[in-house]
């Protein structure tokens, strides 16, 4: 009998850490999808989103004693994820052009399958894909603060009042970031003729 486990073996994989059920992982694992989702909103590509989640989890491991003291995990995580995002972007200083190029290189297909059923018409799907792709590019031209507020407010549906508390950023600041972000997006899309019929 020959066993090859490198490729193609459909094996359930157990890592010993599973059994350890450390408080750290037990507390954070239920929020992993959420963290990835928000990170993906921030960056618009999988690679950077995963990097951000990874950086956050590495950081949180060193503070794992604090985790069990956190009252409401999700809002708390959102706040530190936001800070990590702002912080990471500061370190990387990636140009908007770099952002777009990397995204295209990553060649992540736009998940059109995830669109609601009423967009099953092929033409409409292709059209949507183009619009999504142009919007993602336009989002890449916003600064990190604008991108964060657009992600959380316009995509995830948080209100500005909620974000004021969650992110600990003054309401006026959030308002002006959102305003500038939307205006800039509209300008870009107007020039591109993205929504022109």
């Amino acid at each position, binding site marked *: 009998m020959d066993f090859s486990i490198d490729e193609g073996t459909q094996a359930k994989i157990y890592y010993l850490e599973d*059994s350890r059920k450390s408080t750290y992982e037990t507390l954070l694992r239920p929020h992993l999808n959420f963290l990835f989702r928000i990170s993906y909103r921030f960056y618009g590509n999988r690679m950077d989103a995963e990097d951000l989640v990874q950086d956050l989890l590495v950081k949180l491991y060193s503070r794992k004693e604090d985790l069990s003291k956190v009252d409401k995990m999700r809002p708390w995580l959102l706040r530190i994820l936001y800070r990590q995002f702002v912080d990471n972007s500061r370190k990387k200083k990636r140009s908007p052009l770099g952002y777009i190029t990397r995204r295209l290189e990553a060649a992540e297909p736009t998940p059109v399958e995830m669109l609601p059923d009423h967009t099953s018409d092929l033409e409409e799907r292709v059209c949507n894909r183009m619009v999504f792709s142009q919007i993602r590019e336009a989002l890449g031209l916003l600064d990190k603060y604008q991108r964060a507020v657009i992600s959380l407010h316009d995509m995830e549906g948080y209100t500005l009042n909620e974000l004021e508390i969650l992110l600990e950023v003054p309401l006026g600041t959030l308002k002006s970031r959102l305003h500038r972000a939307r205006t800039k997006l509209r300008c870009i899309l107007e020039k591109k003729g993205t929504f022109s019929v």
Partner: protein
Amino acid sequence: MDCMIIKEKMDDFMDGQLEAACAAAICEHIQKCATCRKRHAIAIRLRETLKALPVPPIDKVFGDRVFRYAVERNKPYRQVLPYLMRIAAAVLFVFAFGYLFQKTPWGVGSGMEAITVSMELRREIRLLFNSEETLANVTFSLELPKGVELEGFGEQRKIVWEGAIEKGSNLLVLPVTAHSLEGGPIIAVLRHGERSKQFTVNVKVTNPVYNDKSANRPHRYEMSIIPT
């Protein structure tokens, strides 16, 4: 009203933040002015599209990978070997153990198998076993000889946990590092109800040999089952 002012106030208008008179004036203007009408339509489409922008599902193995990475990254540095050396040393040892918990009588195996690892080099021992059925509540227990550490478990010698086994192939990954030359047996026992199986792997530890290619060759054993 001026087109530029409307451009400026578009968001507040759409958010219903403007005074009634002002909103009415914008409304009236939009009906007459094609440019602003288009601008308004774009703003609406933009909001709808941002809401609909899809997020792909998380990569299934990302979760396991990222938690292990976080634990690994936070470990105090004990290995003096350079990082690349450690990667090269992550050789796969594959053990294939026929069908697990087979209903037929268990045969007595040829005894212990042995593996040789270099001191302070992380090795992954991978145990591959098959099961005819899905089994919940399987107790896994692992005993390690002195000086051999399982990643993430420090100096813990005995590790017991509960888990499930799926029908078909199951792979148990054991990243180990030997910190002394002593070595000894790693004993893995899987228990389900009254049934149990024990696997023994004798670990021999040698001084680190960095360029020994033979040490990096994957091993694959067929092991018979030793009932306890």
